[in-house]
């Protein structure tokens, strides 16, 4: 243990490109107790909650591991997770209730426990806030950013309702849009660049953030005036709006400007340069993999530095039609027979179409399997990025409760039974990991319920109508 007692609120100040930057420090040895699992003042290390999302289902026959319990044997789809296997639990055999408009229903019901709402495809949205937001209200109340939504590719499905594109919502028709630009994620997490023209010296930043706060105070006062004349339903809508503004104020307030205070040049290991990769591609090319890695590393840093504790990470959008040619062509090459015959090329390389179409050798979407393996490769990169950051006695992943999920079970039929979900991390010791928990049926909403409770949200249930989950998955609890 270090002989220095360092205040947890210490921030690093620096100058980046002429604009002052303030960044929270990760937990340092000096802040922790002797066991490395709590702060010197006695508080436990914070837990993080997140959802990592892919789309268009899996080939269930290749997804579900054949053995169960601890030390399960990875299935074909999950092989890329080998390096982090002991942090990944697989839950199988549970079903997603309700159904509804395909693809959107998957993420909606999983994240809200309720059916889709909206009276046409272009209006389909969530009926309430998603579980990440519910959890953020409890564990993200004091961080600079309440929750961060990150996206890697942005190929739309053919529908336009918010449920078809976004996993996280603060309410009906109020999605939390992912940030697809690595530069913007960087700025949001680590930069407090205030004005369009950066000015030298910390004093300019003082004025800018003070100005921002004064502006937001005026906005809140104005809104309060409006609130007094509204009917109940409009009041609720406005309250949602105000919550968002208060979250911004919190963000500005928790990174105080100005200098002062000693402290060594300890840092969160800030990325050496501001990344410039532009995400949001509709074509899954090699650059997408770089973006995935960059986003994963920045998010890991953001979690370690306690800038945020809640996230959703959309590798692809629900029902996405992202073009995924290189992976599929590689799979075709790998299937080349000894006589040199190649499987027929799919008529479309869009990821959603690939989840439905056959080729000349097999009947049900073999390319879907190759795509799923690739997604799991990207998930592996993500999980490794979190595991790489030391925290306390262990690493960041030890204090995370993360769910990896997508929008259907069986890709070709859109079925929702045996809904694939992975639980990753140990939630500060509350979760066991590296287990395959297999069930003979039941409600998959128990997965988000279990993980939300493990990170500290004491929800009594999750779900609605006659599909309300109340019991955590005992097999996953430590």
């Amino acid at each position, binding site marked *: 243990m270090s002989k220095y007692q360092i205040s947890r609120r210490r921030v690093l100040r620096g100058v980046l490109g002429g604009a002052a930057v303030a960044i929270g420090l990760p937990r340092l040895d000096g802040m922790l107790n002797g066991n490395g699992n709590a702060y010197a003042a006695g508080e436990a290390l914070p837990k993080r909650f997140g959802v990592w999302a892919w789309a268009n289902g899996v080939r269930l026959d290749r997804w579900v591991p054949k053995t169960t319990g601890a030390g399960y044997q990875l299935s074909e789809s999950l092989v890329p997770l080998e390096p982090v296997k002991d942090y990944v639990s697989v839950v199988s055999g549970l079903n997603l209730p309700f159904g509804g408009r395909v693809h959107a229903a998957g993420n909606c019901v999983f994240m809200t426990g309720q059916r889709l709402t909206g009276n046409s495809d*272009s209006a389909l949205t969530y009926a309430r806030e998603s579980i990440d937001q519910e959890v953020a209200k409890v564990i993200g109340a004091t961080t600079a950013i309440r929750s961060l939504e990150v996206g890697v590719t942005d190929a*739309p499905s053919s529908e336009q309702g918010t449920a078809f594109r976004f996993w996280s919502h603060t309410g009906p028709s109020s999605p939390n849009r992912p940030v697809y630009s690595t530069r913007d994620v960087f700025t949001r997490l680590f930069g407090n660049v205030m004005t369009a023209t950066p000015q030298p010296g910390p004093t300019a930043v003082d004025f800018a953030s003070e100005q921002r706060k*004064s502006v937001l105070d005026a*906005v809140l006062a*104005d809104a309060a005036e409006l609130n007094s004349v509204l009917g109940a339903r409009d009041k609720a809508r406005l309250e949602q709006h105000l*919550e968002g503004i208060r*979250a911004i104020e919190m963000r500005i307030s928790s990174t105080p400007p100005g200098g002062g205070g000693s402290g060594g040049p300890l840092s969160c290991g800030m990325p050496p340069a501001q990344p410039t990769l532009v995400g949001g591609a*509709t074509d899954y090319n090699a650059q997408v993999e770089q973006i995935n890695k960059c986003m994963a590393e920045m998010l890991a840093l953001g979690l370690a530095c306690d800038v945020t504790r809640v996230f959703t990470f959309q590798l692809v959008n629900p029902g996405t*039609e992202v073009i995924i040619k290189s992976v599929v062509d590689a799979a075709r090459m790998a299937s080349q027979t000894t006589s040199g015959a190649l499987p027929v090329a799919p008529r479309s390389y869009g990821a959603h179409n690939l989840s439905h179409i056959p080729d000349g050798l097999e009947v049900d979407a073999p390319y879907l399997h190759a795509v799923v393996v690739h997604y799991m490769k990207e998930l592996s990169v993500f999980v490794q990025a979190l595991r790489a950051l030391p925290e306390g006695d262990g690493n960041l992943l030890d204090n995370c409760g993360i769910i990896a999920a997508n929008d259907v079970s069986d890709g070709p*039929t859109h079925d929702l039974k045996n809904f694939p979900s992975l639980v990753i991390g140990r939630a500060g010791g509350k979760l066991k990991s590296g287990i395959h928990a297999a069930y003979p049926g039941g409600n998959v909403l128990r997965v988000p319920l279990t993980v939300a409770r493990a990170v500290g949200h004491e929800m009594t249930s999750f779900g609605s109508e006659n599909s309300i989950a109340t019991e955590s998955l005992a097999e996953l609890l430590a």
Partner: protein
Amino acid sequence: MEMYEAAAREIANQVVAEPARLARVVSCNPVPAGFDEACARSSLGSFGRLALRRALTPSEVDRYLGLWRGVSEKQTFTEGARAVISAILQSPKFLYRVEYGASTTTGARRYTGQEIAARLSYLLWNTTPDAALLDAADKGELSTDEAVRARATAMLASPRARAGLRDYFAEYLNLQDFGLTPEAARGLEPTLAAAMREQALSDFESLVFDQGAPFTDLLTSTTTRVNATLAEYYGLPAPGGSGLASVNVPADNARAGLLTFGAFLVNLGNGQTTQPVRRAKFIREMVLCQPVIQPPEEVNTTLPMVDPTTPRTTRQRLEQHLTDGACKGCHASLDPLGLSFEIFDALGRTRTTELGLPIITAGNLDGQPFEAPRDLAELLAERPEAKSCAVTRLYRYASGAVEDVDDSARLAPVNAAYADSNGKLRDVLLSYIGSSLFTTVSDPQ
């Protein structure tokens, strides 16, 4: 909210960075260095009024003056302007349309002149009310239904109304980004998708503003506005010149009317399959205002793949819809409509066969037989439901809400206006605007 805040700050930055733009907000010249109350007040008066679509209240003026003064004293007057612009653009009173009304002697609440100015401007010109319109409101020129109607007539005559009402039709067709971005082109070459979008919107514009023809004519019209590339794509005679121009569809051509062109055929789909049930759903919901319910949850709606050795047309593959007791309740009234359009593929091209098999276009609309899409369109145009639906759809767009029982009764005169004018949308709009539906507040929820 973060996006709003970032956008508001960015706009404020851009305004402050350009003297010419700043002059539109700060009304005094030169811009003072320190706080100048007179200048701030007059600037707030004009800018704030345009932003909030009405004059600021005294407490709002005090609030923003306070902000301006506070920032000016620490920095400069211009910085104060930056802060005030950012604050006003984030106010819920700017972001949301507040329509509260005021009580009248009759007991019903009537929208204020400024609220009516905003309703007129957003409905007809799809933009915020300009100073001239707000002036008229302030002078009390929008205080009677007749005066409002007269103003609307004048606004409809402006070119801004053409651009404004195009937005209605784009929403009706759920065009979204179709034709605007390559990603939303459904696999079409982007300029072709753009031409299809423009075709639909300019056909609508021409019908409403130039021809004054009934809305249902859109379904059956034998003229359409295309460019040379699009005409060739459709198999229509070429228009003269290089741009968009009107062409006549020959009587023996399979195409006529909105339902046989790209904005309907391609936009609704995914560019891969024709999706006849989706097409039929549009007809039922948007043309006839008949609700179509979702399939039961346990039903697997994915069509099994076609076995190449035994080809079947889409119609054949959907047979089960019409024979299975669980399906035919809904599908008997959907599939015959959508399947008629099978002679247009997923990208809107004409075809006569599918996998070498002939395509059957005949079907029935609630028992009325038709031979081909053109005949179906004729039948649809004659249905009384199509006429009242044209009114309903416009009403929902204009009011932003689905009509309740009370509204339906009050829509009767608007429906009558449709009948009397033989379906001219202009007259329908004016009838609606001149009615209490537009000018009085319905009960709050």
